[in-house]
């Protein structure tokens, strides 16, 4: 009887539960030498705000979202540098180190306070140093970032946005473990079982992320549901795995132990477009092969539907020829950033944006310089010109030492087939000795610049359309333009350092010099000159002998 009651109860509850879990893996060879694998674990929940009645969505994230009234949240922890000119575009680009940005609900009164509390909470949740986020490294981007979920349409979304990146953050196993714990199957079953920290930190580039947004249930958007997307992006180097005939065993150290039983869909997508030029053989044979025509480029996707099974699945590719040199078609837009100058007094940041395409591309470039790297707006040059016609709009918020970073945004119209160089000068700041991090001469990291572009073509474009939830939404998703959010490479500068070993000496010496003035001035002001009879003056030797005779 009791057993029956429980089963009835559970049926009732399952009817009430309205969350869904989907796991997906996208693998794309980046010939000639790399392989991109991208995991996404999507949890959608139409449950109440606090996730009190959910069985799949991570409760901790739900509480963070509702406590701090976050509308949309993006957190990535990244190690390595995505090379856009060689590898094309990732599904989600991420800045080196830790990056966090969030939109708050317009009802929030003190956004800066909530923002600090949010970052501190996430810091505990992911064991990352996000608690170092404060006003002095937070900006409010005006043009570069736009929400991907639903937002209240009657307010200016940028007002409720906060962005911070910590380029020095080192991503490690300790971040991956709490991240995996948010998944319903943790790392026992399903795709997350492949995420072996031993193997994934052995890559050229790895990035873990969590993206939370609210998606409209209907077209008129009267109701929304929460979508939590946990992502992992890995770029393997064939040299590191010692072969270009990749397989799960090589990449992840083990095969796939079947789908997560709680997932409503488990699919693996392998981009086999490069099979035409550099043929390889997939094993086991995929369930279907779909050709997707999207924005002037067609890609072939091999799709595996993974079911719950007890045997290990080992998907792999075997290349027919040993090695082939390939010419990569560079993506329509790529960029690089570097530091100018020598010495530790003055320098400059150069951002080069290359448009390979045959039409204009509109991009927003966001330069975010920390307070200890004061940039001078008067030295901003676009292609060497102070007043460039390419700049359509500009936003600048000057920084303040120890309080606010420097923040520059440029809306540029890049002419077809051109390289645009943005140069801005900075001056090195001399910090207090306690403000230097340990190993001060290692250098200081500068966060990546953000580049937001509306690409006219989907060449090398792998991101999902903004309305898509699962990865198959990319198939035949042609649009007039493709919004893309990129991060340039970070940079590093070496600030001038004081001598850390001598605070006492400096304090003593400087005070001595002040006393050198004070003493005589005190004498002059308080005493008067008098004549005093003197004995015959003694020579030095006499003085010394007198001293010893005492």
């Amino acid at each position: 009887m009791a057993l029956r009651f429980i089963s009835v109860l559970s049926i009732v509850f399952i009817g009430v539960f309205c969350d869904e879990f989907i796991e997906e893996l996208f693998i794309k060879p980046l010939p000639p030498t790399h392989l991109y694998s991208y995991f996404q674990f999507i949890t959608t929940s139409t449950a109440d705000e606090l996730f009190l009645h959910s069985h799949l969505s991570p409760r901790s994230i739900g509480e963070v979202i509702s406590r701090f009234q976050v509308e949309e949240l993006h957190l990535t922890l990244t190690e390595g540098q995505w090379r856009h000119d060689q590898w094309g575009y990732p599904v989600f680009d991420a800045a080196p180190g830790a990056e966090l940005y969030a939109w708050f609900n317009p009802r929030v009164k003190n956004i800066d306070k909530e923002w600090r509390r949010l970052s501190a909470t996430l810091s505990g949740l992911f064991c990352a140093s996000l608690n170092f986020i404060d006003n002095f490294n937070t900006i409010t981007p005006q043009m570069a970032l736009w929400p991907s979920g639903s937002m209240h349409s009657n307010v200016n979304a940028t007002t409720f946005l906060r962005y911070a990146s910590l380029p020095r953050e080192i991503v490690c196993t300790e971040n991956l473990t709490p991240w995996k714990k948010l998944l319903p199957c943790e790392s026992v079953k399903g795709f997350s079982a492949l995420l072996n920290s031993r193997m994934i930190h052995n890559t050229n580039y790895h990035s873990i992320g969590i993206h939370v947004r609210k998606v409209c249930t209907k077209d008129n958007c009267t109701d929304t549901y929460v979508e939590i997307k946990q992502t992992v992006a890995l770029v393997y180097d064939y040299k590191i795995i010692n072969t270009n005939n990749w397989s799960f065993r090589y990449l992840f150290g083990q095969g796939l132990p079947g789908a997560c039983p709680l997932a409503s869909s488990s699919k693996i997508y392998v981009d086999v477009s490069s099979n035409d030029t550099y043929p390889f053989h997939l094993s086991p044979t995929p369930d279907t092969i779909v050709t997707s025509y999207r924005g002037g480029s067609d890609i072939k996707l091999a799709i595996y539907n993974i079911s719950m099974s007890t045997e290990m699945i080992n998907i792999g590719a075997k290349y027919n020829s040993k090695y082939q040199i390939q010419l990569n078609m560079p993506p329509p837009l790529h960029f690089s950033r570097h530091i100018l100058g020598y010495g530790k007094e003055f320098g400059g940041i150069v951002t080069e944006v290359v448009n390979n395409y045959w039409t204009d591309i509109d991009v927003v470039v966001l330069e975010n310089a920390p307070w200890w790297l004061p940039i001078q707006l008067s030295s901003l040059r676009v292609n060497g010109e102070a007043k460039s016609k390419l700049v359509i709009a500009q936003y600048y918020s000057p920084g303040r030492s120890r309080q606010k970073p420097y923040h520059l945004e440029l809306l540029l119209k890049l002419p077809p087939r051109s390289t645009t160089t943005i140069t801005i000068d900075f001056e090195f700041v001399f910090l207090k000795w306690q403000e230097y991090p340990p190993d001060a001469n290692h250098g200081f990291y500068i966060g990546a610049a953000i580049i937001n572009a509306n690409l006219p073509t989907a060449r090398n474009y792998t991101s999902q359309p903004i309305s898509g939830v699962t990865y198959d939404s990319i198939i035949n998703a042609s649009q007039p333009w493709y919004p893309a959010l990129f991060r340039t490479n970070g940079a590093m500068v070496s600030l001038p350092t004081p001598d850390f070993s001598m605070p006492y000496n400096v304090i003593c010496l400087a005070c001595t010099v002040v006393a050198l003035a004070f003493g005589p001035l005190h004498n002059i002001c308080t005493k008067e000159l008098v004549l005093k009879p003197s004995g015959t003056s003694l020579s030095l030797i006499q003085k010394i002998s007198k001293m010893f005779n005492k």
Partner: protein
Amino acid sequence: MALIIKYIIAGLVRYWLIHIDYWQTIANRVEIATPLNSWKRLVEGVFLYDHNINPYEGDAFHESPIMLIFFHYLMKNVPYLLPLLFTTLDLLTAYLLFKTSKSFIKIFMESQAKNKCEVAEESYKLLLIESELEESAEYVLSTYLFNPYSILNCAGMTTTVIQNVLVAASLWGASTGHAILACAFVALATHQALYPILLIVPIAILLADVNKGCNKCSYIKTLLAFVLCWGFFIYISAYIMDGSYNYVYNTYGFILTVPDLKPNIGLFWYFFTEMFEHFRLLFVCAFQINALALYIVPLTLRFRKEPVLLATVLIALSTIFRSYPCIGDVGFYLALLPMWKHLFKFMQQKFIVGCAFIITSALGPTVWHLWIYSGSANANFFFGVTLSFATAQIFLITDLLFAYIKREFTLKHGSSRRIDDKPAILLLR
């Protein structure tokens, strides 16, 4: 004629230095340009203001709003005149100092005539002769025109050039008895750099001496005029910034709290770089009191009768101990020293101080290059040089004061150091 040639040569040198290829290097030198006065920051501030961004929102600009709109107007309308303007202003400073020292000579002669009865017979040869003093006025001019510190300061187009004009103008106003002029200029200088506020004391005394009459009324009038002028400038500045007084944090606040620790020739930068954070406030207060308030009362009491000396010493001391000094300030007070030519023979450390000035001026740029560019030296080297430069300046000033009291003593008691035909030594007691 000789004077005009001096002006022309000095003007040409300055104008030429602004136009040579190394101008950028000169304008960026740490010894010349501080965060407070550098041309680069002025350009940035004006640029931001021109783009409707409040330059006081960030950390780039620390000049007063009056300077901001002044240079905004100039850079928008007559940018080509700026080198000429700086050269002219510097020449004007020299001219004003020349004029000032001429009127100081009159004050010297008057006070000497008044005190002549107290002079010992054997010290008559120490008395000042007008022709010698005339000469020293010309030395003042030449020192300002050809002092490399002043020349480089002008060539770097720092706003210290403007501050020097203002201070020189206020001294000239005081020496000739133009009370309002003196107060207005010293208030403007104070508004720009805060430290010239010290000058109001010697100026008040000078004005009372020159204008004769009720001393106390004169002091009060001067102080009142100064406070009103200063308040007016503060108000006007706020009016320029649309009624916001936030600029005060970026001007006076910046000068007083020393947030930017970029090296300069002063004592603050390394001291507060190496300071323990919880003692910072204490030492900031101590150092600022040392620069702004400590010496003014005792020196005023002691040298009440010598406002010119008081002015010289206060300018020098505030230069040595200010938070962002530059060699332009040093050049300015060095130009006042030839007025005290008659004290030079009582000074004991002329040689040491002279050598220290030359050596530190040569070593400073060298160790800076070693530290910042070749990476083969560290901050201590540059700190050592600035420390010895400050020490040399302190020796110079204290030596000058000792020379003054020694001369005073000698005038009164004669130059023989004997009591009852027994040898005696001069002591402070």
